[in-house]
């Protein structure tokens, strides 16, 4: 037992000899490890938050949008700028593609909304009844658009939570009227907030697609089909998503009479694909944050090496004495390696604590959820020990290679 305890005791005595110096060295590692833990957990937290928001929209969702227009000189317009996708396309998808639960075409336009003395600019989305199911919508007050509303093209609206609070702060919006251009719509419901981000309906108002046609001039194609701005499709079986995407693709290509060499004039994105893309982007962002923080850990490691070199130099005579007493090279370098590893291990453990506290504070402040996961902690602690061994190696090796006679003569 002494065989293991002795070197550890010796290492700690070395550390205790210069308390301030050791504390400062440890501090370098603490800051590095704490930075890695905090930034990585912020990154992980952001990732978890964004992915869960997207999933709340429904991970079995496929969204079809019109493709980009190709304008003068081949300059591409923004996605969705082409007017190719129609209500009839949506009906065709519903009737001929397998594994489909709902198909919800919608048309959206930006409109000035006025209610009493308040006004706001919002996205007005004309929807079918299936829109509610496709996007997992829930109302906090009132009801969603009913079949009767839809059939009769009733001038009713369901408000996104932000729109409701902007226009009707402090009052119940249900039953109130909103002026939209030359038309009036009556509020029948308010949607539960989905949080900011992709596909959020918080800043939109939903009206029946049938009413949209009467209120806002909705364009038609040359064949007389009614243009829509997107078609949301939900699947009954997520595992069939690639089959469904390819069926929709070939159906729309046929309907749009595209030649075999032409590009698609529409764009299909599935939520699953989107989640995968966004998570992998966030993953790299998290790694980047970690890498930046790791630079401070590296600087801390160089500090350790510096201190160990000084320590070896100062204790040259001690090394000589130990050698005269019969210490092997191995005994000498384990002594110094243990000393630097103990320094960095201590720094690593304290750093995990500090990082964990910092991450918790960030989460408490409400700006971002943070996730301190075991793998990051394990990684940070083992990296800090690794740094101790790596940066302690050269000084320790130097110490073990000293000539005992010269070492004994040192002052």
């Amino acid at each position, binding site marked *: 037992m002494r065989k293991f305890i002795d070197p550890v005791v010796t290492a700690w005595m070395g550390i205790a000899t210069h308390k301030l110096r050791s504390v400062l060295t440890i501090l370098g590692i603490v800051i590095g490890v704490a930075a890695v833990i905090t930034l990585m957990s912020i990154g992980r937290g952001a990732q978890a938050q964004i992915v869960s928001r997207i999933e709340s929209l429904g991970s079995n969702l496929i969204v079809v949008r019109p493709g980009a227009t190709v304008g003068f000189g081949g300059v591409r317009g923004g996605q969705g700028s082409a007017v190719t996708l129609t209500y009839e396309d949506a009906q065709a998808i519903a009737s001929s593609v397998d594994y489909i639960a709902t198909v919800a075409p919608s048309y959206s336009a930006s409109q000035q909304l006025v209610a009493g003395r308040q006004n706001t600019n919002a996205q007005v989305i004309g929807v079918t009844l299936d829109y509610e199911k496709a996007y997992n919508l829930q109302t906090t007050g009132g009801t969603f658009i009913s079949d009767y509303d839809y059939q009769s093209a009733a001038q009713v609206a369901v408000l996104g939570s932000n729109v409701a609070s902007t226009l009707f702060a402090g009052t119940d919006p249900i039953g109130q009227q909103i002026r939209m251009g030359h038309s009036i719509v009556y509020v029948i419901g308010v949607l539960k907030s989905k949080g900011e981000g992709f596909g959020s309906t918080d800043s939109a108002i939903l009206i029946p697609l049938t009413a949209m046609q009467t209120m806002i001039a909705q364009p038609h194609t040359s064949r007389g089909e009614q243009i829509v701005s997107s078609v949301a499709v939900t699947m009954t079986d997520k595992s069939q998503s690639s089959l469904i995407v390819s069926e929709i693709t070939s159906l729309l290509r046929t309907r749009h009479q595209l030649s075999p060499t032409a590009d698609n004039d529409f764009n299909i994105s599935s939520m699953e694909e989107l989640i995968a893309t966004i998570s992998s982007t966030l993953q790299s962002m998290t790694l980047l944050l970690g890498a930046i923080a790791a630079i401070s850990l590296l600087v801390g490691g160089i500090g350790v090496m510096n201190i160990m070199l000084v320590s070896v130099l100062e204790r040259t005579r001690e090394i000589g004495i*130990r050698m005269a007493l*019969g210490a092997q*090279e191995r005994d000498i370098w384990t002594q110094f390696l243990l000393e630097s590893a103990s320094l960095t291990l201590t720094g690593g453990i304290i750093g995990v604590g500090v990082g964990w506290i910092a991450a918790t504070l960030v989460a408490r402040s409400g700006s971002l959820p943070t996730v301190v996961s075991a793998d990051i902690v394990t990684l940070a602690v083992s990296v800090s020990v690794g740094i101790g061994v790596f940066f302690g190696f050269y000084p320790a090796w130097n110490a073990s290679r000293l000539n005992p006679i010269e070492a004994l003569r040192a002052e």
Partner: protein
Amino acid sequence: MIQLENLVKIYLMGKSELTVLRGVTLTIGRGEMVAIMGPSGSGKTTLLNLIGCLDKPTSGKYILDGNEVSRLSRGELAKVRSQKIGFVFQSFNLLPRLSALANVELGLRYTGTRDRNGAKEALERVGLAQRANHRPTELSGGEQQRVAIARALVKNPPLILADEPTGNLDSRTSVEIMNILTSLHVEQKITLVMVTHELDIAKFCQRVIRLRDGEIVADEKL
């Protein structure tokens, strides 16, 4: 115990060579107490370092306790030191952070023995049992040297080497230290080789070897 045959030691000082020992041939028997004397630069410390396996001869043969050690590697020499040789230095060379007892225990640290009880006995042996928990800075020079002697003898080595063991001490304390060393030699039959330039100190030994310019010029029994 010690057999040296034509031992030569040349140091490289940059590009020039410095011959410190020019063929030393010497035999020291088991249980002898020998003083090596000579003016500074005569090579007496170099000779002691070679005997102590702290350094390797440039040429020649060194047989210690029946084994040739002149061709051993660094690691093997360290092993020989840990098992067979105890050192006493002029400047005591105790570790300042450790108590007297811990310093003596250090003498056992690299020997492979698990049992550290010998350290207390060794301190008693030099009359310092009651000072076991004092640090070197709290001890007088004579007491520090006694701790150093305890550290050298704690592993019961057949050979103790002392490099000017009384060099930093006043004459009264020097006599005390020499009495302790002599009693070790007498009672435990330890072979003792010491370097000194004080004739009074050398007189405690039965044999005095005089070096000059790296050669033995006299080898007399007292």
